[in-house]
């Protein structure tokens, strides 16, 4: 039976949802509907939009916002927090290991070819110690819930996880429109995230930095789907939002072009893929990128956050081994479990997957954002056959997982509160120490029964509360 997070086993409102329930009852559905339209108008006016790759239509459409918050109790959060920190630490330890002695491969726990033959692996990083030995400074962990006590990790995001602006804006809109909900101080605030992020970035300043580090946010530009988030975060941190054309390398340091001449840059929070960072090292055909950037990085002139090559840790083929990493590097048992995963690159797993594809969720190893995936039970037989053919053509490129009975959360329907599947992405900050704001982004599948929550596939977002007590 699907776990509905608002109700307990006998259908009574769970304690942590008491305030939300009271609010729904007091406002009524038509009242909430009206306020929802107001919220959407505010989002549109501010210009919080999300471009969707590969689909026609409006290039700047709104990501749908649902008014009803998703709530975690303090106890639930404590457990989540422990698991998130543990995972972020292990993933960074793994990255250090991958680019140094490779102990975990030597110990036979992860197959070498899976790492060293991986497209996300960057031999250029071998032997380099990034400041603080941190590779992934913002770790976004996608978590699903299948039962009151069962939280499982769907995937890790070690490169540049997006969506944190929605966490902040959703709360901002809710506080602005419904101050009464927050007056009693039941909900832990999240608005210190930008300050913590800036602190984290400053902590990993390079050896060449003297004095207060100059931090910039590097965006591919205003056509990027996450541009709103880039400008939003830069604004809240009070740092420059730069594009590759604004930067150049000289004498081992990175400089930004300002009206007063060049200014040295110490830390770059880059929201741009490895491939497009530096045409001299990664993709010579790239017109983006800052020539010489990587060399400046390796020689300690600048810090890149995240480090190039961090993608190896969030690869879907590597995901399977994260519990092993936690045991190997930290000597602990994982707090958050993985979802059982079949690796199509293994003959036995492949046979099982092809036989049961109609019941499974199959994903491309290198895909993201809900593209290149099949939800077996919701797909037509033709689609399943077509996907099977793709898997057969390149088994190593696919994994499969059981179709999970994701928990549902209360969502505002046209006439009543409806139940929709959701997941959760918290953002763990890793500098000289780890920081985690109590909250994250809840994504919700707005179509009844749908399990795909990606905003690129019609998912929406909602405010997420972590209660103080």
């Amino acid at each position, binding site marked *: 039976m699907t776990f509905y997070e608002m109700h307990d086993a006998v259908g009574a409102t769970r304690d942590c949802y008491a305030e939300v329930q009271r609010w729904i009852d007091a406002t009524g559905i038509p009242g909430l509907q009206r306020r929802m339209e107001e919220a959407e108008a505010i989002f549109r*006016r*501010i*210009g919080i939009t999300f471009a969707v790759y590969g689909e026609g239509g409006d290039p700047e459409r709104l990501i749908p916002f649902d008014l009803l918050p998703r709530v975690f109790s303090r106890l639930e959060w404590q457990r989540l927090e422990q698991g998130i920190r543990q995972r972020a630490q292990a993933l960074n330890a793994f990255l250090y290991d991958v680019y140094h002695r490779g102990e975990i491969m030597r110990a036979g726990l992860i197959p070498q070819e899976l790492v060293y033959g991986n497209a996300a692996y960057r031999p250029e990083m071998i032997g380099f110690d990034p400041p603080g030995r941190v590779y992934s400074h913002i770790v976004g962990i996608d978590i699903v819930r299948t039962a009151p006590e069962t939280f499982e990790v769907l995937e890790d995001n070690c490169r540049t996880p997006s969506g944190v602006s929605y966490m902040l804006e959703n709360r901002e809109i809710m506080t602005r429109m419904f101050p009464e909900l927050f007056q009693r101080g039941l909900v832990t605030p999240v608005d210190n995230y930008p300050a913590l992020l800036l602190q984290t970035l400053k902590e990993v300043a390079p050896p060449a930095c003297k004095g207060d580090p100059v931090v910039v946010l590097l965006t591919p*530009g*205003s056509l990027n789907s996450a*541009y709103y988030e880039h*400008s939003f975060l*830069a*604004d809240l941190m009070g740092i*420059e*939002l*730069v*594009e590759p*054309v*604004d930067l150049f390398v000289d004498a081992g340091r990175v400089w*930004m*072009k*300002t*009206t*007063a*001449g060049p200014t040295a840059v110490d830390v770059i929070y880059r929201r741009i893929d490895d491939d497009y960072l530096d045409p001299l090292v990664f993709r010579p055909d790239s017109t983006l990128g800052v020539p010489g950037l990587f060399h400046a990085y390796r020689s300690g002139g600048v810090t890149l956050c995240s480090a190039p090559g961090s993608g190896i840790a969030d690869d879907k083929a590597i995901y399977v081994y994260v519990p092993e990493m936690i045991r190997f590097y930290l000597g602990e048992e994982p707090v958050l479990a993985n979802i059982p995963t079949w690796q199509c690159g293994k003959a036995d797993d492949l046979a099982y997957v092809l036989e049961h594809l109609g019941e499974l969720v199959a994903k491309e190893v290198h895909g993201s954002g809900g593209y290149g995936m099949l939800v077996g039970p919701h797909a037509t037989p033709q689609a399943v056959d077509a996907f099977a053919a793709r898997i057969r053509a390149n088994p190593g490129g696919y994994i499969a997982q059981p179709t999970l009975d994701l928990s549902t959360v209360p969502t505002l329907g046209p006439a009543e509160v409806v139940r929709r599947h959701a997941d959760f992405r918290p953002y763990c900050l890793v500098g000289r120490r780890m920081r985690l704001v109590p909250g994250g982004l809840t994504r919700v599948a707005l179509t009844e029964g749908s399990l795909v929550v990606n905003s690129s596939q019609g998912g929406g977002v909602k405010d997420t509360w972590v209660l103080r007590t």
Partner: protein
Amino acid sequence: MLSRTAENLFWMARYIERAESTARLITMGQRMAVLPASGYRDEWRSVLRVTDSESRVGPGPITEEDIARVLLLDPDNPASIQTCLVRARGNGKSVRTKLTQEMWEALNLSWRRFEGLRPAEARNDLPAHIDWVKTRASVFRGAAETGMLRHAGHDFMRIGGAIERAQMTLRLLEVKYYVLLPETDVVGGGRDHYQWTSVLHALSGSRAYHHVYGGVYTPARIADFLMVNRTFPRSVAYCVDQARTHLAHLARAHGGPTRCHRTAFEIYRLLKEGGDGALFDRGLHETVQQCISLINRLASELAEAYHF
């Protein structure tokens, strides 16, 4: 401030001004097109010439629908209102963190108003569209006036706006200078009268002109008003004064004047010496052309000095 930020603010202001200038020209064209005198079709042609858009219509008579297509909607014409609005918003979007919320909202609101509109439909509501554009430009300027930090970004914006405004007045004079040629000192036939008042009207200057010069139109005074008057906000001299004020701020913040400061001074001196009919003695057309090329030089020297 990032050079790219300065560049975007500069161009954002220019495009907003340009959208408004084009709107004003369309109004002027409409006024002249209803004149009883013959040859009004040439009036639309001169409007297109002022905006460098003449190649976008055929050699035949120009209709209001052509004007709606070329000057309001054409996404490829850098002078069309649609292009200006889209580009201004694009510039604003890439420096969002440097704009106030109100400025951004002014840019972002209905920037797609003209998307998908057909010229025939647009033609029917032309006056309403034109008013809307002028209002948007005013709202944007108002938001900047009352909310924007007075840092270098503000200076770059104001310089962009001033340059674009001066260019508009100069181009209008360049295309229309022949009606101001001082063949007679007193206004002759009705058509000339309308020509002149239309030019003044396009620049929101017909009432202002009367306040300054009384009721009599003479070519020398009109030229004087549009070129060297230092109180009329669309005169070239006023725009140059404004640009110089903000250039001076930039010089203070960036360790001294640059070549563009000298060019701005040169335009200032040229206009200062052109009062009291001296413009005509020197040749109005030559002076106008000289100003246009000096202002173009100013814009490129500005970009060079601040590393655009």
